[in-house]
């Protein structure tokens, strides 16, 4: 089990009903965590449309999660 700090922005914040949470999980990768959270919160995004940031940097979705990581799933951006 790893303990992670997860932050939610924009549509994922609305869908989750919270801005952040600390979570214990058995998910070993960001991708596994995404599927766990999608099931838990009924997120309206497929994996293909989501990027992941770990400790404030974009990382591949198959990146292994480490104790204490700060994880942010990034829905399609719409700045500019």
């Amino acid at each position, binding site marked *: 089990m790893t303990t992670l700090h997860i932050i939610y922005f924009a549509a994922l914040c609305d869908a989750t009903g919270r801005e952040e949470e600390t979570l214990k999980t058995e998910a070993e990768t960001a991708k596994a965590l995404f599927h766990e959270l999608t099931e838990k919160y009924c997120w309206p995004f497929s994996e293909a449309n989501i990027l992941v940031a770990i400790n404030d940097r974009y990382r591949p979705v198959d990146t292994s999660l480490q104790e204490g990581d700060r994880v942010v799933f990034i829905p399609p951006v719409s*700045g500019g």
Partner: protein
Amino acid sequence: MLFQLTNRPIEPLVESLHSHAGGIVIFEGRVRAINDDRAVSSLEYVAYPELALHEGHAIINNVLQQFDILEAYAIHRTGHLAIGDIAVWVMSAAVHRKEAFAATECIINAIKARVPIWKKEYYSDGEAIWVRCDHCAHDHAPCPAVKESM
């Protein structure tokens, strides 16, 4: 007047630039009153600041390396914006104009593609939605800074 001649100074937007800068290209992205045929009353931009600043700096640094330009800057609004407000401002300065046009367009394309900022549109009918995909982000040839580091 569509075209004027003047013998008086034209006030610069950016006061002090490299003395070799001959071509400066500025992009302003403003809040439009209409999007996808819906009347927009206002916008909200939310950023993930730690990553947005990292990506924004990386974009500018890439463009400074990959184009023959002297300076480049960009700034993006967060919070609540009204129609006509500037959401994003980008500038490149080069010796010659061709590179400045290319660099400024690359920077705004890259910002729209990879900087984690999200836009919520508030419509005149009372609805508000997070915009899932801006039209403009996908109809351009990729430039080097768009894909870097993602």
